[in-house]
């Protein structure tokens, strides 16, 4: 054993109070916003309705954004194709639901949820497979080049949307939700759509699952390191390509899940539905901080809540509420709320 080099003892100063509060701040934002809502709205039942449905909307947005936190946040791929995966997920899922009419048409919660689950699985399989092909053909040559990613994935987006037109026809498809998920429950003068409650369950489950996977495995680390210096990751013995493909497939499959959930919420699906959500979804990932599941989760809740509050208080401002939120958060934290990956 060699003698240790002289350790040096860096000096530490006390952290100031604002610094310490700042660390926990992102977690406090949602409660603060809710309190702000309560104070400015006045009517308790309106506030309750808006808050609960805003949170549920946030969950749905989170489900759609979750795949993008992996692909854009961790892998640093600007994937506009995500929007197309959302649409494909919706088409596949809704087709499955229409085929399972005997399960959706009866007022049995069990059968209804089973049908939704089946649709989700079908959608995730298809979009996952599609993601695999997308990665191989479209994304692989452009890792690390944002601009080309934008172009190539927009190309992929157009192609997939057009293929939806070829396969399902250009018409919008209207649908109704399974029986037990129709309508609302009324509670303290507030009506909450039942479907939103289901979305909350799905969203929370997804959040917990993603956190566990990313915390308990090295996958997140490998991807983040791989984006910075892929050669080095390989020199440490990891098959980076496989990990990237795997994560991309997961992200695409999650887009499929988001598509089914969103299609069921909207009750109408179009080939462009995913594309329309892209800006919002990007906003959520950005304000959350790249690569952060927690950040995206909080970001989605903020977006859902703020949209509702603003639309209630001052509808004219609803248009810019998301942009204002994004701008404010980036001014406060240029890397987003809880960045795991540094933006370039």
């Amino acid at each position, binding site marked *: 054993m060699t003698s240790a080099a002289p350790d040096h003892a860096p000096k530490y100063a006390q952290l100031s109070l604002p610094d310490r509060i700042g660390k926990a701040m992102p977690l406090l934002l949602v409660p603060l916003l809710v309190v702000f809502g309560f104070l400015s709205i006045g009517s308790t039942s309106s506030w309750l309705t808006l808050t609960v449905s805003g949170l549920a909307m946030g969950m749905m947005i989170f489900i759609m954004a979750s795949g993008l936190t992996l692909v854009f946040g961790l892998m640093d791929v600007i994937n506009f194709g995500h929007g197309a995966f959302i649409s494909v997920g919706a088409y596949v899922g809704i087709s499955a639901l229409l085929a399972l009419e005997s399960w959706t048409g009866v007022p049995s919660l069990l059968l209804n949820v089973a049908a939704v689950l089946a649709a989700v699985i079908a959608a995730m399989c298809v979009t996952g497979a599609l993601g695999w092909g997308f990665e191989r053909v479209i994304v692989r040559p452009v890792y690390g080049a944002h601009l080309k990613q934008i172009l190539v994935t927009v*190309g992929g987006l*157009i192609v997939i949307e057009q293929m939806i037109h070829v396969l399902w026809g250009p018409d919008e498809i209207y649908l109704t939700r399974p029986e037990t998920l129709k309508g609302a429950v009324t509670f303290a003068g507030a009506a909450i759509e039942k479907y939103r409650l289901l979305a909350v369950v799905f969203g929370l489950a997804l959040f917990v699952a993603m956190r566990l996977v990313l915390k308990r495995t090295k996958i997140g680390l490998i991807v983040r390191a791989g984006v910075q210096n892929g050669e080095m990751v390989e020199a440490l013995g990891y098959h980076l390509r496989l990990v990237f493909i795997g994560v991309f497939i997961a992200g695409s499959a999650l887009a499929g899940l988001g598509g089914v959930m969103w299609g069921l919420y909207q009750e109408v699906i179009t080939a462009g539905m995913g594309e329309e959500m892209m800006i919002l979804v990007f906003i959520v990932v950005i304000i959350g901080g790249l690569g952060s599941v927690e950040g995206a989760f909080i970001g989605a809740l903020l977006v859902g809540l703020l949209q509702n509050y603003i639309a209630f208080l001052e509808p004219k401002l609803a248009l810019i509420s998301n942009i204002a939120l994004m701008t404010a958060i980036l001014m406060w934290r240029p890397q987003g709320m809880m960045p795991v990956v540094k933006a370039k």
Partner: protein
Amino acid sequence: MLTNLISDDRPRSLILTGLLLGILFCLALAPFLFPGVRSLETAARICIFIVLVASYDLLLGYSGIVSFAHTMFFGLGAYGVALASVHMGRGYDALIVGTVSGAVASALLALLIGLFSLRVRAIFFAMITLAVASAVAVLVSQLSGLTGGEDGLNYSIPRELTPAFKLGSLFGVSITGKLLNYYLVFFASLALFLLLLRIVNSPFGRVLQAIRENDFRAEAIGYRVVFYRTLATCLSAAVAAIAGSLFAIWLRYVGPDTTLSFEIMLDILLMVVIGGMGTMYGAVIGATIFVLAQNYLQNLMGVASGATEGLPLIPQLLDPDRWLLWLGVLFILSVYFFPTGIVGRLRSED
């Protein structure tokens, strides 16, 4: 003299030189070479898009700034002319006031955005501009009292620039105001293009390239990155606005779909990339090819789909209605086969 005109930025490839001269020749004589309404429309569009794309390349290729708000400036210029013509009435003064105020407003807005970009990361900046541009498009449709909303604005321009003004005929082509209008567009575009070419080949242009490469180091050798970026953004916005004004003068109509849509933004992006980023000549090639494709791909597909009749699925995919599909494929292939753009490809082969 010629060196001076092209700012000593030689095409550096024989084929490229040929292509550029060919395009210049065709555009200069378009009304006589390709008589017909449609082809003149196409030629004017090519001129305008060359300027628009070149101005975007100043931002993207030379300064490394990814912005999705370029159509916003384009639209500002177009709406400037439209609003001036609506409110001041038909006249050259309206055109001039509209163009100048559009360009100035664009530069100011760009200044604002440029200052903003100091704080945020490049990729976030891109997303912010995307969101802002889409919000502006929605705003324009909401403020229908002023902007005509979704439906846009129709207005008149001086009679000398419209088909109603007839001057007789030359080489069997009737000389009308439309033709004068075309040459207004052509020469204005040419001048703007040469101006941009000069800017990117000036010492200023070199600094932009350095900043694109390594802004940290550029700052450390004494360049205030912020100022350079902001100036580039403003210049690019002002030129885009003038292109928009030309478009408005040519079209005599503005609407959100023609000037502000995200689709146009993507088209511009694709033109830059197909042509070759970081070279002004790329803009010429990219815009020409793309506008031609946009206008004639459908016709071509009609022929192809007719020819493949009877085969399974193929005619369906070649149906003119599926032209967007092939546009998407074009997006993908162009990045594959022209990673450095057509200009880059041609240069590396010589």
